[in-house]
């Protein structure tokens, strides 16, 4: 008998009810960001879009946006980019490093549940949504798309993820090259890096992206049982600690959270924080605030 997949807990009926009460998700998310940053950059031209610049082609770009003349002149595929007046294209970026499931596998379960729910809500708003993983081997797991078909594709692709990578830390910075400029990002991670991934987050914002951060914390972040020897889930490095180390770790974790929060406040990023022991509904409500109706 196969084990129940975490996404089984995410039903479409729940998502529809949630979408009805959350029709202004993007507006809500946008309201938490810096003024004017709602403008997105998209490779391609269409009605309602304003030309911005040319940039090299990246996987996932619409081939119809290739500027053949510029490409022929520069001997490299280039696409035209436009500034969009409204929110439309999103990439949900999921951290699949080892720390997402070790020692607390519930964090990974909640992460992929939130990943699907966020994608549904964004797709329901009429935008395009893709899926990228930024663990030790960053990759575009599902190209952007729209509509119910894209939702089903995302759900299938999420189920195909074998799980977090056993070794290696998250490379959020790789998304700078991986995700085409102009696409907004929903970053779902534990942000458990020594700099709280602030450097990479800063790099990700430069092409006028909008970032929606979802941090999933776990009670196990500052608890290690009675063993005096600790092993890092991602690097495998071991550290011998003295008695009472958990108190020190809790203090460091609080400082880490404070650092990330201060950065997001200063950078105008939206940061939602939820706990791995929460159901995905509670986690989402906590991040999005009270319902519209």
């Amino acid at each position: 008998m196969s084990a129940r997949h975490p996404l089984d807990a995410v039903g479409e009926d729940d998502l529809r009810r949630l979408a009805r009460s959350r029709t202004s998700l993007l507006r809500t998310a946008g309201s938490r960001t810096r003024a004017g940053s709602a403008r997105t950059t998209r490779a391609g031209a269409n009605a309602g879009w304003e030309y911005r610049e040319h940039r090299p082609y990246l996987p996932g770009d619409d081939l119809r946006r290739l500027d053949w003349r510029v490409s022929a002149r520069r001997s490299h595929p280039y696409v035209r980019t436009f500034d969009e007046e409204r929110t439309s294209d999103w990439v949900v970026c999921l951290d699949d490093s080892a720390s997402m499931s070790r020692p607390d596998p519930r964090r990974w379960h909640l992460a992929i549940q939130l990943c699907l729910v966020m994608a549904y809500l964004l797709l329901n708003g009429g935008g395009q949504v893709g899926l990228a993983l930024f663990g030790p081997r960053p990759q575009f797991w599902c190209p952007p798309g729209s509509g119910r078909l894209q939702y089903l594709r995302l759900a299938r692709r999420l189920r195909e993820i074998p799980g977090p990578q056993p070794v290696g830390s998250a490379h959020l910075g790789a998304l700078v090259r991986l995700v085409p400029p102009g696409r907004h990002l929903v970053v779902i991670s534990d942000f458990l890096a020594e700099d709280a991934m602030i450097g990479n987050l800063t790099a990700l914002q430069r092409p006028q992206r909008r970032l929606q951060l979802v941090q999933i914390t776990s009670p196990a972040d500052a608890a290690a049982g009675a063993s005096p020897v600790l092993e890092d889930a991602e690097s495998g490095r071991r550290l011998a600690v003295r008695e009472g180390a958990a108190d020190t770790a809790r203090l460091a974790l609080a400082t880490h959270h404070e650092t990330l929060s201060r950065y997001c406040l200063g950078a105008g990023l939206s940061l939602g924080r939820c706990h791995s022991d929460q159901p995905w509904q509670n986690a989402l409500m906590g991040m999005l605030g009270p319902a519209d109706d």
Partner: protein
Amino acid sequence: MIDGPLHGWLLAAAVAGLVWWLHRGHRWRQPAVVAALFLWQRAAEQPGGRGPTRRAAPVWLLRAAVCAALVFALTGLSWRDLSPPPLVIWFDDSPSMLAREQGARRAEQALQRLVEMVGERPAEVRFLGSPDHVRPLRDIARLGPEPWPAQAAAAAPILDVRAGREHWLATDGATPRVRLVSESYPFHRLVQVGAATENVAVVGLVLRRALHDPRILGAVRVANLGRRPATRTVTVTAGSGEILRQRLELAPDAVRTFGFEMPARAAAEAVAARLDHADALPEDDAMSVETRPLTPLALRVGGACPTPLRQALTAHPGLRLAAAGATTDLAVECAAPPAPAGAAPSAGWRPTSELLEWLGPDGATRYFPGPWRAISASPPVPGASVLIRDADGGPPLVLAAPGWIRLLVDLDPARMPPGLDYPDLVSAIVGAARPPALLDPLVSRERPPDASRIAPRALAPRTAAGSAPAVPHSVDLTPVLVALAMALVAADLVFQGARRPHPSGHPRTAAGA
């Protein structure tokens, strides 16, 4: 105090160390996985400090306790009570303990030594002659040795020398009885006193009536129970009159007997024999006997008795007719007995046996043998009447009453005509009423020779004196240890269940530690 074999402690320590070592390695092989190690960096062990491999999981204490409990259970750990056990002093109360040496009796010397040895420790004293009576040592030491009578019993008493107590024996070792006791029971300590060995004693004095004249014949026996020859003078007196004075030279263990005689009228209440030149044990240098049993019983014969019976009673050597109004020892009335005499026994009376018995005035049982059948409210006791009928169911023969025996003889001349049977009948009746020595009374007193031996002898007790400690009270802790081990195993299981990995990835304990 917990008591156990040394190898048990060593093995338990070794097992505890092994358990600690195993847990130490186990912990190093199984580090705890954390999501972000940098959060713990400030809690890292200082370089050069005691590394994590030097510490073991706290559960090692629990498991080491389990192993140690099982080891102790296997090696027989016990709880021993170190408080001194109750002290019981078995005190020899033989006459030899009354011997005087250096101004004090042996019993006094023994008590003094015991008080010094025991100190403030509570102790009880039991005498070999009355082992069931318990008295505190302090009381005995305060009262001195006088209050108790010296026991000259030859048989060894049965002592309650139970475990859990400390038993001492205080004696001089002079008598065979105490030597047998010391060899039969395991005493923890032997307190022996006494040094004198020489003693001459009057060991026997006997008086009897002469058969054919009014004289009293006597004999006195003197023994030398010491180890050296002794010279004594023995004197026999009756009242204030001296009957005999004889100088003796006695070899060791020699016994000499001297006869004497005196007129019956010279006999006083008592005749005494005494040795001069008193020795260590003056109590056995004198002996006296009462002469009253030698005097004939004062008899009163009723006027209704037939002449042949009166003549038979008068002629009896153990009887004398008392003067009118004088006190009598025996009365014979020949008359019809009181009711229900002369008639068939009333209801409740039943035949008992051919041998009539009743209690005499001194409490001893008396028998009335003969071809008579007793009908009484059996058994006859003083205060009750005893109706004696002949075997043919004839008229009542004798009715006995309490106090001095009152003989009521109802003789039917037709059935028992006067003749030679009368003296036999009188003798049988009087002999049954009085001790059987009525015809040839003999008064004597003897002292067991061993009761006068005072020479101490080295005892060979089962336990050497002063070397065997008292067996302390101990409790086997094996069941307790096994139960403790089981409880600890259960606690370990519960503890491990609480630490079992939860789907959340950390222990179920609230703090995760």
